[in-house]
């Protein structure tokens, strides 16, 4: 099991990378940026899959399945609407 310290380390570094990359994002694209980061943070799907699919009591797995559904909805709609919006900017 990873220790708390190295997780914190990853968090801080990832935040700095995030700040650095996001600051350079074109101002034209803030709306698609939000839907894209939303889809990416739906990586929570990974946690939901484990809770839903492992050999847990029924109530736990129901919680997991609802979470999985919510994350999956975000992934599908997030990526699709981002692409739909970006297509409009590319046409020119």
């Amino acid at each position, binding site marked *: 099991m990873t220790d708390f310290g190295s997780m914190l380390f990853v968090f801080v570094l990832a935040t700095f990378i995030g700040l650095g990359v996001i600051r350079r994002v074109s101002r034209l*694209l803030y709306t698609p940026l939000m839907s894209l980061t939303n889809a*990416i943070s739906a990586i929570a799907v990974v946690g939901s899959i484990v809770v*839903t699919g492992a050999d847990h009591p029924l109530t736990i797995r129901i919680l997991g399945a609802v979470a*999985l559904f919510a994350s999956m909805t975000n992934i599908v709609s997030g990526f*699709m609407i981002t692409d739909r919006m*970006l297509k409009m900017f590319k046409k020119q």
Partner: protein
Amino acid sequence: MHLIGELAAVLATSLFIFALYWMNDPKTARRGVVAGVTGMTVAVVTTWLQPEIIHHGWIVAAIILGFVVGVPLSRVPLTAVPQRTALSHAFGGLAAGLVGTAEFFLWTGEAGGPHLTPFRLSALFIEVILGFLTFTGSLMAAGKLQEVRWIPQRPVTYPGQNFVNIGVLVIAIALGVLIVLNPTAPWAPQAFIAIAVLAVIFGVLLIIPIGGADMPTVISILNAYAGLAAVAMGFVLDSKLLVTAGALDGSSGLILSIIMCRAMNRSFTNVLFGAFGKAQPALASGEQKAWKQETVEGASQLLDQARTVVIIPGYGMAVAQAQHKVRELFDALTKRGVIVKFAIHPVAGRMPGHMNVLLAEANIPYSALVEMDEINPEMPQTDVALVLGANDVVNPAARYNKGTPIYGMPIIDADKAKTVLAVKRSKNPGFAGIDNELYTLDNTWMLFGDAKAVLADLVKQFGSGGIH
């Protein structure tokens, strides 16, 4: 298998970073979606292949349901993108809250509670509180944006509101601390449920005092919360991938919140606890200046004689779905040799970048979309500023009138143009409930009516040959 999992996580993380990196230019941005989808697929597949996953049917069912709901949600009209975004923050928060709840009951059910370390439990409470408050807060925001009937549009305030809000949050945190100190206490599950309920209530209380004009900031803050909830989930589940992806989302929300706050000259706390848009005491300004109304014919003549026109769109354009008519006017004017630009205020509309997306949908070249800071030096040389459903972002009172809630907010200098044409739906003040001094200036002419209808009439004037 463990090594493959780690490698897949590193690959997915790198792809996510590239996805955001490519968003720095509209030309490369679509690559970002491909990178994001690839990263997500890698992460899902390697997780699913773990040997401990045995109930595949449930996973398949939940994924199919996610597609069934997600695909229609991605096809909403672009004017509805703010509420879709708020809804997706709600889903993100819900997922974090539910996974946190599931983990809590799994851990407390284990003999001896080997997972119940103070650090992990603290992360779990942060996950659950952030998750559930983002869930209901974002649902409220989505409801306000969608103008659902039973959710009040105007800010709801009452005496002691901030005291109540902070009180609810403090009780939830205090209960969390109690459980961290006594994780195996018999009352722990009840206390946990109380925390979840308090977070759900807090989310609602947090959003009811917030009005439409503050939505770009609020959506950005909720975005940051949803990201942080995912980070906390990463700490709980011991997943670096989750921590990284959540941190990317959180930092994006943070940066957008800062930009939105700056564009309104307000602080985070002021947005969340300041209740913008309260009916303000009428300013005792001596004489009431009158509007000068212009006809469509007169307006089209003004536009036709102009060499440079700057169009300033606002939420009114989105409400009227007028972006395609804007495009027709843009074409008509450009054909006559008029230089047309669009001045985009960072908080115009209901979410960051809202106006850009609507205008791009109408095929307006993005080179014509100019940021506030770049367009303002050009405003004094502009012949006509056409204000289209924008209000507070062009109100000159923001520069000097300390009595208005928008004092200090940077504005687009529409008033400095030689002539101002303002299209306005009604004679009422805007969402923030503030009188706009721009409308009564000597060089301002008003066009009253629905933005789409007014533009259609204008375009017709050009097309019918009424102007030569």
